[in-house]
């Protein structure tokens, strides 16, 4: 892994950028455009370095050996970002896919900002493809134009007489052919074009290809893929941190005598988040921690139980909340309706529980901090690490490695696990000794930053012929972004991540009131795959199903009629229903079918779930048929994989997922108490992708949203019982 970080041309580039220094010069470095004046200066360097690689911009590098290295500004955490990024670049470059490799970008907001986030580098909100699409197409196309120009110059023919194919420039008239690698020196001497024509999508060969293999699969099949846990340096220490058992508690005192007596333990240090035991190996440090004695001060700790907090939420929901969306007069419309329907839904705290427990490696000296992590918010982590280390962000470098899952957990505004690792390295003397902080699974389950617990109360009025007259939706729960650096996302008291999926309800309803009560507890919360829609989509799609039933209508047709003005949403609904063989005819006894549709991050997903419920009330989800519209499908197999995985992830949460507190202590410890989906509960999944020429949108999260309500609606169809408290395992289905 070290070769990635020491190659000379990149170091040269970094030096150059440092030298260029000024804000004016660096302002040009956003995306592709930095490559103008900067690249020419760099070309001089690389030419002098005996034809170093062709680096026309911040996103790709072509070697004399024909290798094409794509620089990924996004983390690869399973969602296929590396493959998608490489596909976009390779498409416009006309690269040979077998010569593509992907390398993670350094933390640098100037060059590698997520354009959907503005000025920070990070991955989230299913935005990797959406924000990279035009940027990387241009990056690839401009590089291709330069390679063509170089060949044209060499052969003394017009560039328009040349074409490119699989990593080579071809002159059909003369039968001449030059690989990109052979054109590196000549192309490096050329100016970067200001504008470039992008491919007509009908000529795409890689984008949309049915079988374009992921770049990361071979290493993830033979054990060679490098995760943070695999980082090893000579003399590296491993730390495990004892955190307080209740959120908000602090260290009163600790006795490290027994911990230090464990063979291999080298030190025990107090840091802001607890007491760290540092050893020569994980096993030594873990045994040391087991022997550590800490007295905690619970003065500021959260000591309530989650059941008490939920009881409070239920009472709160009886009061009007802050308006998140108001159209017409919903209370009046409901009061005057022929029929009234109401229901409430309860959602627990959920842990992300990525398979790789959180970890980070830090090498800290008096003037530099180097971090290795499966980093999801690079420049946020850089700033937080700098603050913890007493350095400037420019003194912090980050190596982003494969993340062993994240689901949002590693995208946290406070950078908890990274700040912990830095604070431990600092407490050890900032002497440059590499330190790996390794969380255990128990640390992960107890560690907070959960999907917030929520209570939803819905009411609606129906006319005697089943038309919805009004809809009122009251949500009660914690804000994810309040009191974080992202607090500016709260507008007029409304955190959009609390109400998304509810306030933007798409059904044609004349009178609407969506209201929010933002609560405060001592339990830290965070975005969890599909964020607000992880609960709002359930509430909306379960309740609309209740209304369809009340109206005596087929739940698919009922939704369809309310979506006439929403063609993309209706198209996925139709596709899922059609492929699932949806009909009005009832299924055999003990079987049920349910449907749900959602939109998240501009991607539309509908799912039809088929369930069996046996005489003991045991639910089996047999099949899920999924339709997705994510704009231009970049890699259909990755899209299918994300839908399959999203369905499994959402289903596990719906069936079993819950983090609960008893007197402030988390009741679950590991995967025995915090159940997630196993293979025996995984349904058959069919994914159908809507053909589209729209700009691509994301697929990492949206597939999670509809599965819970689709299954709940299917269970209702099979049993007549509505499940309104998540997870279902807490309710008696029979």
């Amino acid at each position, binding site marked *: 892994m070290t070769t990635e970080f020491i190659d000379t041309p990149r170091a040269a580039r970094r030096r150059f950028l440092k030298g260029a220094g000024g804000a004016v010069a660096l302002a040009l470095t956003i995306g592709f455009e930095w490559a103008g004046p900067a690249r020419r200066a760099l070309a001089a360097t690389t030419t002098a370095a005996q034809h170093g690689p062709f680096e026309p911009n911040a996103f790709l590098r072509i070697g004399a050996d024909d290798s094409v290295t794509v620089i990924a500004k996004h983390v690869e*955490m*399973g*969602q*296929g970002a590396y493959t998608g990024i490489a596909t976009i670049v390779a498409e416009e470059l006309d690269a040979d896919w077998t010569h593509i490799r992907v390398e993670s970008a350094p933390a640098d907001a100037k060059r590698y900002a997520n354009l959907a986030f503005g000025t920070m580098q990070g991955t989230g909100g299913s935005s990797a493809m959406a924000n990279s699409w035009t940027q990387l197409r241009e990056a690839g196309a401009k590089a291709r134009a330069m390679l063509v120009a170089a060949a044209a110059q060499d052969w003394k023919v017009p560039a328009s007489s040349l074409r490119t194919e699989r990593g080579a420039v071809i002159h059909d008239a003369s039968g001449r052919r030059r690989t990109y690698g052979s054109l590196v020196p000549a192309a490096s001497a050329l100016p970067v074009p200001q504008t470039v024509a992008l491919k007509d999508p009908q000529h795409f060969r890689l984008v949309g290809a049915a079988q374009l*293999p*992921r770049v*990361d*699969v071979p*290493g*993830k*099949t*033979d*054990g*060679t*893929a*490098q*995760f943070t*846990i*695999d980082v*090893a340096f000579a003399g590296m220490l491993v730390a495990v941190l004892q955190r307080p058992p209740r959120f908000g508690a602090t260290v009163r005192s600790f006795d490290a005598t027994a911990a230090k007596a464990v*063979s291999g333990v080298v030190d025990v240090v107090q840091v802001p988040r607890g007491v760290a035991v540092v050893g020569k*190996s*994980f*096993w030594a440090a873990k045994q040391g921690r087991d022997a550590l004695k800490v007295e905690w001060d619970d003065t500021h700790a959260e000591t309530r139980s989650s059941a008490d907090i939920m009881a409070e939420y239920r009472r709160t929901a009886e009061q009007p909340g802050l308006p998140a969306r108001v159209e017409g007069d919903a209370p009046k419309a409901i009061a005057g309706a022929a029929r009234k329907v109401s229901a409430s839904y309860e959602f627990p705290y959920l842990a992300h*529980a*990525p*398979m*790789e*427990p959180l970890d980070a490696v830090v090498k800290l000296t008096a003037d530099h901090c180097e971090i290795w992590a499966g980093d999801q918010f690079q420049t946020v982590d850089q700033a937080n690490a700098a603050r913890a280390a007493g350095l400037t962000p420019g003194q912090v470098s980050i190596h982003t490695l*494969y*993340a*062993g*899952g*994240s*689901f949002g957990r590693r995208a946290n505004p406070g950078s908890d696990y990274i700040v912990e690792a830095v604070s431990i390295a600092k407490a050890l003397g900032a002497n440059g000794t590499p330190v790996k902080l*390794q969380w*255990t*699974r128990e640390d992960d389950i107890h560690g907070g930053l959960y999907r917030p617990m929520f209570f939803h109360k819905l009411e609606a009025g129906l006319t005697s012929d089943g038309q919805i007259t009004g809809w009122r939706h009251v949500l009660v729960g914690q804000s994810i972004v309040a009191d974080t650096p992202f607090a500016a996302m709260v507008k007029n008291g409304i955190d959009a991540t609390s109400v998304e999926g509810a306030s933007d309800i798409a059904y044609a309803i004349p009178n609407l009131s969506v209201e929010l009560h933002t609560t405060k507890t001592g339990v830290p919360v965070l975005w969890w795959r599909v964020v607000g829609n992880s609960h709002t989509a359930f509430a909306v799609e379960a309740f609309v199903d209740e209304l369809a039933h009340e109206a005596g209508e087929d739940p698919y047709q009922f939704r369809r009629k309310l979506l006439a003005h929403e063609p993309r949403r209706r198209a996925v609904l139709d596709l899922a229903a059609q492929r699932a063989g949806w009909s009005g005819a009832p299924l055999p006894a003990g079987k049920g079918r349910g449907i749900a549709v959602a939109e998240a991050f501009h991607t539309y997903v509908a799912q039809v779930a088929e369930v069996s419920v046996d005489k003991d009330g045991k639910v089996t989800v047999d099949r899920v048929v999924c339709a997705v519209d994510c704009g231009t499908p970049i890699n259909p*197999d990755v899209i299918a*994989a*994300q839908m*399959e*995985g*999203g*369905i*499994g*992830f959402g*289903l*596990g949460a719906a069936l079993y997922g819950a983090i609960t507190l008893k007197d402030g202590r988390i009741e679950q410890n*590991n*995967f*025995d108490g915090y159940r*997630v*989906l*196993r*293979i*025996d509960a*995984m349904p*058959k*999944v069919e994914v159908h992708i809507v053909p589209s020429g729209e700009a691509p949108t994301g697929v990492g999260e949206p597939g999670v949203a509809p599965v819970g309500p689709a299954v709940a609606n299917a269970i209702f169809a099979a049993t007549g019982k509505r499940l309104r408290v998540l997870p279902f395992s807490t309710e008696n289905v029979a």
Partner: protein
Amino acid sequence: MSTTLTLNGKSTTLDADPNMPLLWAIREVAGLHGTKFGCGMAQCGACTVHLDGQAIRSCVTPLAAVAGHRVTTIEGLQGKPAKAVQAAWVKLQVPQCGYCQSGQIMSASALLAQNPKPTDADIDAAMNGNLCRCATYTRIRAAIHVAADSIRG
């Protein structure tokens, strides 16, 4: 204290606390990183290795317990079932984040070595101890069938 075992076909002496879980001996003493830590209590299967050909959870197996035995990790995986499983994993593009996949492949190859034609129910039973938070389960099932078919030719 040292323990001698056959690790990936080679006689290997590991100098470590005999109570150290095999997982950490493999990772931190032998320096083989393909075997992963996920739970530490045999709940997730990320640490699965073969002990004399059987899939076991190395996170709860003391190093002393494998003295004189054959331990195989993902790095030393050989033989027809194992190679067929790895090829099927690539063909069906199973991995997402990839962290659990060494363990999945170890469990799948042990299954195929014992049951050359597993049903879906056999697969679910054999693989139920291997968690995948990316939920690559449908592809795992399909890939095991593909691997089984390829071995039978």
